[in-house]
């Protein structure tokens, strides 16, 4: 019982250093799905790198050539040639922008799609552990951070890196001694890179994590706004939120301090090397006999050589941000579901409705057992009522039956097949589940009912509603079937929501029906309607019912009385009464209450 709750996320400080290359390769692999765009982008980027230097050269050529020589027709021709060239340059530029944006957007679209698909494979336990706001944050800011990495970093680095390599070669040929001096910057760069990467990854991780907390807290406070206002907690909440926001901003500043140290440091080291080259170069001219022209040329080229530093530094910091985002997204993508369907699991034909639990033991955490050696059998068409106190394991039986969780020990059989050998989706497609609080999606009532069977026509939806005798209840809503409900069913009362959920369950044409306190939170009038509807829903189907209405329980073919995770009694209502055990006690207490109620005299 003393097990500490699992934390959903590791703290940034506990993580191993950012695996740059692996993350980068993985992000880059997302561009592989757009080979055409990517290839064209590469071409355009290289083209543009060449064009940028040619523009300057061409301008100088026209001035030094025809204009200097007073050649007017030549000037005219040169100017027109220049015009044609810049037109070409800008068209290339347009494609460069377009392809980069497309590639980035495409990659993050795919990432979002993969993440969403992955989330759907996660088991119920995962969603218990993760705040919705955090997952939303993963799909918005973290994915967004990756975009910049895909759109720009690599391609800008190619242009600037290319510029450096190219200039470096010229430098080596111009004066190799000086070039060796210039090369001495490499270890400095290496050190800066090493230091920076560690610090910046850590800083960026903290920043992303604290922002994720901001989002999660915000999401929660929106969901709980009614309670907050009802209990006049606005100021306290606002102060807490402000605390999170300030905490986040401290991390941002910490991060920005790292960048503000390293990026200027990078430029500074380049300047130091220029100063050094000036001294060494001059010494070589004055004492070593090198030609002054060579040295001047070398110094000019050296500034071109060091120029991309600033750009590369900025891109580097963008890369860190981007890879930290990638790390967070990939950590989610790599988080394996607690379990998945066995590869040999198959679909299942129309379920007859034979259900058997054989010595099932189960706990949500390894150390806390909720079910202990539970065995029972339900024949097709039978109605099984689960009775017991809160926490006795009723809902856990249902969670195992719907394969939301797998038993730790023992087996669950449906029509004689072990539940692990049945594909989850195939199984669930034949189960109908109505809970006490059911989630509705934003959209119309019609959409929500149709959720169970998207291909159903409007007419079928209306027919199902009629069959359950709910038509008047739904038509009484402001726009009938077209009434819009908000996320989670806001705008509808609990009773109205259950009406929709019952209809939704019928639409699914389930073979096994599970009602988990489905009629609990409902007013008597609506409940009566739901009870009548139940008759129809239950007919010919195996059903499991968790309820505290005696009337429902009495009708069951089999009552399982649970206490502390074990079945302590089983039988029909009449049998259990005769036995004078736990059930009889419950019943008696209930009767006392009810009798007093019925007989006000």
């Amino acid at each position, binding site marked *: *019982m003393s097990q500490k709750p699992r934390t959903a996320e590791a703290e940034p400080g506990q993580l191993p250093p950012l695996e740059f290359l692996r993350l980068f390769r993985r992000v880059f692999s997302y561009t592989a799905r757009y080979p055409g765009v990517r290839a064209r982008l590469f071409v355009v980027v290289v083209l543009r790198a060449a064009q940028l230097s040619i523009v300057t050269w061409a301008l100088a050529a026209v001035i030094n050539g025809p204009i200097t020589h007073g050649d007017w027709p030549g*000037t005219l021709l040169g100017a027109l040639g220049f015009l044609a060239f810049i037109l070409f340059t*800008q068209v290339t530029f347009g494609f460069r922008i377009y392809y980069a944006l*497309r590639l980035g*957007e495409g990659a993050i679209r795919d990432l979002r799609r993969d993440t969403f698909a992955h989330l759907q494979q996660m088991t119920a336990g995962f969603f218990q552990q993760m705040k919705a706001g955090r*997952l939303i944050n993963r799909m918005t800011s973290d994915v967004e951070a990756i975009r910049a990495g895909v759109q720009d970093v690599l391609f800008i680095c190619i242009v600037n890196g290319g510029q450096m390599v190219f200039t470096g070669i010229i430098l080596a040929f111009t004066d190799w001694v000086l070039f060796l001096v210039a090369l001495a910057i490499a270890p400095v760069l290496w050190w800066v890179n090493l230091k920076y990467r560690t610090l910046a990854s850590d800083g960026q991780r903290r920043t992303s994590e604290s922002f994720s907390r901001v989002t999660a807290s915000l999401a929660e406070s929106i969901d709980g706004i009614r309670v907050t206002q009802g209990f006049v907690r606005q100021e306290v909440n606002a102060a807490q939120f402000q605390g999170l926001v300030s905490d986040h901003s401290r991390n941002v500043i910490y991060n920005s301090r790292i960048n503000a140290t390293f990026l200027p440091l990078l430029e500074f080291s380049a300047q130091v090397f220029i100063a050094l080259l000036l001294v060494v170069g001059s010494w070589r001219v004055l004492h070593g006999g090198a030609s002054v022209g060579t040295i001047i040329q070398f110094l000019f080229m050296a500034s071109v050589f060091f120029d991309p530093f600033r750009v590369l530094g900025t891109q580097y910091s963008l890369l860190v941000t981007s890879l930290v985002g990638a790390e967070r997204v990939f950590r989610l993508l790599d988080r394996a579901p607690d379990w998945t369907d066995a590869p040999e699991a198959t679909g299942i034909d129309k379920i007859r409705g034979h259900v058997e639990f054989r010595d099932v033991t189960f706990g949500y955490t390894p150390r806390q057992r909720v079910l202990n050696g539970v065995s029972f059998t339900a024949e097709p068409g039978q109605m099984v009522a689960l009775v017991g106190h809160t926490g006795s394991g009723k809902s856990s039986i249902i969670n195992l039956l719907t394969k939301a969780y797998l038993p730790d020990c023992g087996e669950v059989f449906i029509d004689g097949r072990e539940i692990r050998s049945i594909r989850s989706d195939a199984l669930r497609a034949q189960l109908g589940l109505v809970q006490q609080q059911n989630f509705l999606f934003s959209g119309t009532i019609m959409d929500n009912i149709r959720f169970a069977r998207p291909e159903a026509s409007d007419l079928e939806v209306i027919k199902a509603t009629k069959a359950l005798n709910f038509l008047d209840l739904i038509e009484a809503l402001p726009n009938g079937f077209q009434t819009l409900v908000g996320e989670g069913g806001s705008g509808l009362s609990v009773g*109205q929501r259950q009406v929709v959920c019952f209809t939704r369950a019928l639409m699914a044409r389930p073979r096994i029906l599970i009602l988990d306190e489905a009629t609990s939170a409902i007013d008597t009038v609506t409940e009566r309607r739901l009870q009548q509807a139940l008759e129809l829903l239950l007919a010919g189907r195996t059903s499991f019912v968790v309820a*505290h209405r005696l009337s429902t329980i009495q009708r069951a073919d089999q009552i399982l009385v649970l206490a502390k995770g074990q079945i302590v009694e089983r039988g029909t209502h009449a049998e259990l009464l005769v036995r004078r055990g736990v059930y009889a006690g419950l019943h008696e207490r209930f009767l006392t209450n009810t009798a007093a109620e019925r007989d006000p005299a």
Partner: protein
Amino acid sequence: MTPAALSDGAIIRRLLGIAWHYRWGCLKVLLLQLVLLGLGVAVVVLTGLGIDALRSAVQPGAPAPRWPLGWQPPGGWSPMGVISLLALGVFLLSLLRAGVDYTYRLSVDRLVQARLVVHLRGDIYEKLQRLAFRFFDANASSTIINRVTGDVQGVRMFLDQVLLQTVMLVFSVGIYLAYMFSLHVPLTLACLASTPLMAYLAIRFSRQVQPAYQENRRRVDAMVQCLSENVKGVEVVKAFAREGDERARFEALNNDVFDQKEGIFRSIARFTPTISFLSQLNLVVLLLYGGWLVIEGRFPLGAGLVAFAALLQQFATQISNLSTITNSLQESLSSARRVFEVLDTPVAVQNRPGALALARARGEVRFEEVWFDHGVDPVLRDISFTVRPGQRIAIFGPTGSGKSLLMSLIPRFYDPTAGRVLLDGHDLRELDLDALRRNVGMVFQESFLFSASVAANIAFGHPEATREQVERAARAAAAHDFISALPDGYDTLLGEGGVGLSGGQRQRLAIARAILLEPSLLLLDDPTAALDAGTEHEIAEALESAMRGRTTFLVAHRVSLLRRADLILVLDEGRIVQTGTHEALCRQPGPYAEAMQTSHWAPSAEVAR
């Protein structure tokens, strides 16, 4: 979100207002940026001097270096000494520059991230906390989240990416222009002929992409909404084995974002190079007109045309920033609009000036001809009744009859459309809202627990409560036993990374939360609905003690609770159709008696089956 749509001009004015608020920070950033520029130039000048000094030392014909500020190295210095000194100067200035650069970068982030963004987020959050429920009924949570997270960054963008950049742009362009004009006025004018066209294009681009950016935000909202619903409703999705369809729905929304972005990309890919092209077109004008001037001998080549070309290229680089700024401006305007919409949403339910703060209400509640509607059909019609302090009122009626709504008028979650609600003889609208709500304890149909410890959830309305108070409330709500059995007792964390509770347990925490406040009014929205028969029995006493001495409104369907009510209001379609005690109503033909007779409570003939 709000009826009045803000014009671009109004938004910009407001953004400038925000910038004005941070004017000293902005000024500091601008000054630092100027110092950086100056230091950058100084380093280049010093390096150039070094080269000139070297050249004059080796090449006899070379011009002597032009020493700045009238300084001249002493004649006895060796060229190597002079050059070393200059290199030292480069080193020191670079060091200084690095320091200033550090301060500059940090100042920008301190200004926008640590101040502007923090304040804005705080303001929006604070506002959200006060907005009436109608706002939350009407806006999906993901939209609201996006506004606090993404859109706030958009507003920030206006300050550091638009405003400060524009000032720098204007400044540097001004310097280049002054320099160019000093060289040759007609040539400058000719080379700048395309500038009005650029301005025109920038404005047109803005008009074109802004709606697109807004559409983008809407589509992103829809996509995030789908995600959020799938996370929150994951059980339903799995229960109906709808993963595939939901994946398809998400993919469609995801593609919607992608497809729509395509248009924005095309616009940017057309606009940016066009601006760039126009600024390079100036170079063509220079070659033709300037070249002609040189050939005619009216303009020097080196000091004239070459210098002019260099200036014009710098000018072009600066101007091409214009497209980035324009794009940022559009993004920040769309974001700002969404942020301001939240900030401007009127707080529908708010304190009147001079509202009366009721310390402890006696608990007399009076409804006078109250009507309420959400804009369509009335949900409550002509409700009038009076409740004496300490009375217990049950509200009974079918789904959708307005029971919960009637209750939510008492803590003023909504204001009536017509008529009034009085507490102790005061119209609720004349009472201080917070004080009023502190007098009301509430248990909702669905208990919402926050990700915090059990104790913190119970002490939600009164965070300073001692552990004894918390435990007493928990005992009264029959929650103490199960709490003690939790892994960490009262310190057990709920929600994310914490344990899950059953519906009954959650509801008992909610009851404890309400009891802790010792309110004079208690609102119970079907508190026992989620409890099983055994637990209900246990909690009956707890509820009884909670209700004692308090005016209590409860929505209930259990006869056990209805029987103990002093007055039952039977609602149907928003109207009170019957009033009376349980006994009286049972004897009276009408919906109540009808509901009682056909209900399934009693052991009927079936029992002995």
